[in-house]
């Protein structure tokens, strides 16, 4: 039991290191240097450049800076943001909770809606309608969904506030905006799985035992349909984290997305690296959870 866990943790650390290193190299290869990024479109004189280089110790070779970064990261020190002049842990820490809250709520809403759509909309014409709606949702940019939802439910009806991370009401519209495309994708995968499962011999057996169709669907077919859906969900968490950028912009919400975009566009290396490490960590955790979920869902995997 201990061994596989150790192997997993080891692999996780390796993934984190690889992600951080790749991000470091990518930023190093990007045109312009850190000094350019800090100067922005402001005054640019040799004196100003010299001071910036001195302040951030940018005169050291890239390898030394990289080693220094790794050494401090291992000790829990992620450094200071070039742009925001605050400790990275503080910059990111403050934005983590709103992002996770939004991602979790959106995922919850998306899963629930997908289950309802896949299980309830079984009649042929309802299926067609549902399936078309799902496709439309998946192919509409979240930005547009957000603006439309805002216009109707915030600006016109006044049910929900437009902005911020202030209580449950402010979470509703962004969570729906993010959850809808997930529900669309997930419902399609679930429905396919259900259809396939219902044609399997075990479904025929179940029916022949006199079970009602509904019961066959929920108690037998759903378990089979869940496997690909769980894989899908692991993937969509990644999409969720990426999608927060636009949602935050539209809804004026705090969160990691805005911080990341700002950090990348201004080559704010410490923040970018911290975000990459964090995202990689989240991915490792989610993948582990999905693997465990497989075991729960499918007894055959437990034996092997």
């Amino acid at each position, binding site marked *: 039991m201990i061994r596989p866990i150790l192997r997993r943790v080891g692999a996780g650390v390796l993934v984190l290191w690889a992600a951080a290193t790749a991000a470091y190299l990518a930023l190093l290869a990007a045109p*312009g240097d850190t000094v350019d990024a800090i100067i*922005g479109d402001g005054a640019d004189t040799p004196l*100003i450049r010299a001071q910036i280089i001195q302040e951030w110790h940018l005169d050291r070779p890239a390898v030394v800076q990289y080693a220094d970064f790794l050494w401090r990261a291992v000790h829990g020190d992620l450094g200071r943001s070039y742009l925001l*002049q605050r400790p990275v842990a503080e910059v990111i820490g403050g*934005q983590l909770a709103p992002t996770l809250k939004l991602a979790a709520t959106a995922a919850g809403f998306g899963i629930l809606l997908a289950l309802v759509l896949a299980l309830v909309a079984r009649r042929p014409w309802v299926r067609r309608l549902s399936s078309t709606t799902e496709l439309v949702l998946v192919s509409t940019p979240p930005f547009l969904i957000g603006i439309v939802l805002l216009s109707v439910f*915030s600006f016109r009806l*006044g049910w929900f506030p437009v902005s911020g991370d202030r209580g449950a009401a402010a979470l509703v519209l962004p969570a729906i905006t993010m959850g809808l495309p997930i529900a669309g994708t997930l419902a399609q995968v679930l429905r396919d799985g259900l259809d396939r499962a219902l044609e399997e011999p075990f479904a025929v057996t179940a029916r022949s035992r006199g079970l009602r169709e509904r019961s066959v669907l929920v108690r037998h077919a759903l378990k089979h349909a869940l496997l690909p859906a769980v894989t899908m969900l692991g993937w969509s968490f990644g999409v969720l984290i990426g999608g927060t950028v636009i949602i935050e912009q539209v809804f*004026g*919400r705090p969160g990691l997305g805005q911080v990341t975009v700002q950090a990348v566009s201004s080559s704010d290396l410490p923040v970018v690296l911290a975000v990459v490490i964090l995202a990689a960590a989240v991915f490792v955790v989610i993948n582990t959870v999905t693997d465990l979920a497989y075991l729960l869902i499918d007894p055959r995997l437990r034996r092997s």
Partner: protein
Amino acid sequence: MRRFRTTFASLLAATLLVVAGCSDGSSGSTADAGAPVSGGSLTWAVETEPITFNPHQYAQAKARLLVWNTFEALLTHDDQGGYLPWLATGYEVSPDGKAYTFKLRTGVTFSDGGRFDAAAVKANIDQLLTPNYAPTVAGVQLKNLDTVEVKDDSTVVLHLKKPDVLILDFVSSPQGAQVSPKSLKEAKNLKAGGPELAGTGPFVLDRYTPGQEVHFTKNPAYDWAPANAGHTGPAYLNEITYRFLKESSVRVGALTSGQVQVIEGVPATDESLVTAGRDFSLARGLNSGSAYSYYFNTAHAPFDDVLVRQAFREALDVPAVLNGVYRSTATRAWSVIGPTSPFYDKSLEGGYSGNAAKANQLLDQAGWATKDAEGFRTKNGKRLTVRLVQSAPFVRDRRDVLAQAVQAAVKQSAGIDVQVQLVDQGTATKALTDGEYELFDNSRADTDAGAALNLLLYSTGAINRTGYKSPELDKLLDDAVATTDRAERARIYQRLQQLVVTEQALVLPLYAPQDQIAASKTVGGVAFEPTAGVPGSAYNLWLSK
């Protein structure tokens, strides 16, 4: 020696400004909100979340309205190009122009309880000169500062290495604002600013939620507003929240649905949504500093030839492209200096006209007489191509769209091939450093246009992208800051504009940058900051009951 004249005239100007509600003739909201009342809390949606709340680190004109809620400067600008007392009651300049003596107001306290005095002023400047703290301020605004002398508790003297009238602009600027010496010593994140930095202003910044909002509470002890602030004593509002909403349509929706009472940044495309109802007012203010312009890179072909520079200007029908992108909301610029500056040379207006026939004739004359299969002009088999590199993070006012409009216009009118590159900051800086560009676009919001010109036009200027170096131009720039006589400065800058705009055609001025404020008519006191032309602080805002 010059002294303040805080006379009837400036008070009248201040009153007029407040009543008019804006500096551009559009209707303000004051008339509808009735007489000022104290109390209430207001929410204002702004486009830009400041990178820093430390005024010394200020670099975003869009953040200026927040600075003056918490912090104050020694002087402030009137709307005539002059200065009014603020934390200083007056100043004197020595005859050689190298010593500026400021008499400080007494009885002023920082919100952390500390006393504002000459030692505090010195502490602030010492901090600015600390290595690695504010290199831009130390290298530009304070480059001529020699020493700071504390004469007594309420007198401080700035000794300069050489005469530099821009020191007055500095002591009126956010970078010159006074931060409590205690905060300077103790703040953990000094350069980021925020609640731990105390100022003397009418509000106290007490809560900042990154990505969401910043909240200010009234400073009840406040009693030292400048003469043009609209009233005296504490602010009217008990509290004000600025919410960061980057999407303009979301800001407008939040306003029209009553979730916020004021917004700034209303693009032309969204104006009708605000003005459609009777409940909201819209006001525009023109910014100070340099106009948004295209600067020609004279270091290499084709813009090393003045004929081609003139041809490019004639090839572009500026009002047509401005109308296409901004409808009728943009104010055309004619000079490198913005039209609201006291140094603006009005005689430049109409100097070139967007005459396509003349453009083509000039290009023929310059040797770009042949055309290739795609209709672009060529010379010795080389196409007339010019590159404009825009740094995406700094593109505002849809300047990328404007560039496309310019591209289409000059292609059609004169066969000039403009290549617009919208790139990241690193790539843009690299292109500029390597000289891989022919057009450079820029506007600066400096309150004294001279500060902008020093950076943009001086032969060693920090953002001189024209590559044009001339002793005459440098001398004009030097002379213009060596005297405190405003009429003399205006004369010098007039000559400079003739040289740069008319004779050398170094620049194609496009429009005067502006800010817009839309407000519910229940909000009174909405105004633009005199001279700067950006939204003012919350000091004089009130909510009618």
